[in-house]
């Protein structure tokens, strides 16, 4: 009886010490800092590197044109357009840019998916090719009667490369996380309205 109580105590102590050691090691390795880390504020004038993309913000504006780069609006509806130069930094063509920029705007419902358009000819979400910079437009439809925001507040996301994922053992980009916030002033709509398909 006494023997079994002693061995049980030993086991508990071993488990407790082991757990404490594991938590201490995780703490030393920085497992608890990531949760509280503040993402930096990115300057719109500078190029932004994410895992797969090199981004150069160009301009943001609100447009009430019927066609913006080939995307159709209802009469009277407005859209918030953010143009930027995107360069694919990876070795293969990809269109993994749907989660790249996430709007934080109070006027834009975060569930609203933007149109992502190649400004060259209005192709909707084409693959971008390695090392070829293209001007892209993210176009968010604004809700009816929404006020024109003074600035566009974005979360810039990045993914990490894994040579082998856990499911298929294939290479890929995973685990999106915010690398910074970007605040782009919303300017006047450009005069040369283009985009009639």
């Amino acid at each position, binding site marked *: 009886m006494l023997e079994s109580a002693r061995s049980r105590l030993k086991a508990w102590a071993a488990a407790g010490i082991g757990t404490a050691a594991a938590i201490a090691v995780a703490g030393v390795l920085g497992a608890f800092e990531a949760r509280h880390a503040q993402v930096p504020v990115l300057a719109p004038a500078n190029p932004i590197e994410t895992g797969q993309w090199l981004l150069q913000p160009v301009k943001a504006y609100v447009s009430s044109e019927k066609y913006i780069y080939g995307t159709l609006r209802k009469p009277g509806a407005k859209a918030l357009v953010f143009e930027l130069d995107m360069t694919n930094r990876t070795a293969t063509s990809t269109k993994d840019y749907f989660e790249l920029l996430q709007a934080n705007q109070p006027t834009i419902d975060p569930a609203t998916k933007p149109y992502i358009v190649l400004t060259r000819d209005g192709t909707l979400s*084409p693959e971008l090719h390695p*090392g070829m910079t293209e001007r892209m437009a993210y176009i968010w439809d604004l809700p009816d009667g929404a006020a024109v925001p003074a600035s566009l507040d974005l979360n810039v996301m990045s993914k990490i490369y894994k040579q082998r994922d856990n499911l298929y053992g294939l290479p890929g980009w995973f685990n999106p996380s915010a690398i910074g916030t970007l605040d782009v002033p919303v300017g006047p709509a450009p005069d040369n309205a283009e985009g009639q398909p």
Partner: protein
Amino acid sequence: MRRLANLVLLLVAVALCYGLQMSKPHYADLIGPIPVRGKVGDVVVGRSFEVRVEKVQFARKLRADRYGETKVLTTGGVWALVTVEFAARDASTVVSTASWRGPTRLTYDHTERLSFINNGFLPVTVDPGLQKKARLVFEVRPEEVGNATVLISSKLLAALDSQAEISIGPVAASSDGMPAGTVDTLDLTQPVDGLPK
């Protein structure tokens, strides 16, 4: 002594496992496409289709018809246009993907900007005994043109299926960095097989 022997055995097992992990092919390599190699002019025979590259042309712009309206497609690099002739082997099949792999192994997928054309471009339905011509169009960086390989397969993830790998060979560069013989505009409105539309 016995403890030491156990330790040595453990270390040997670790070394063996590490060696196997480093030297053996991974899942992605094992189930990857099976290459069938050839060069321009050869008939490359895969599992379900045969393909012969007739010619390779380069252009700064492409002209194409979209809903009865002529569009000119520009590019930040150069358009590579590969005219091919397909045939199915013993059953009708569809050839749906192609990529351009440059000398530095950057991989440029078939362009998605011409998806509004549905005749003579990928995906191509081919039938046994009936040759069918098609155009493969890639948007590439000018320095990725020489000694490139065109990869053609029936479907996107050609796991354990054959993939035609046709080497283009060296391409001379002109003084402006563009490949020699680059024309200003290539007309895609003409049918590829010379037959009326």
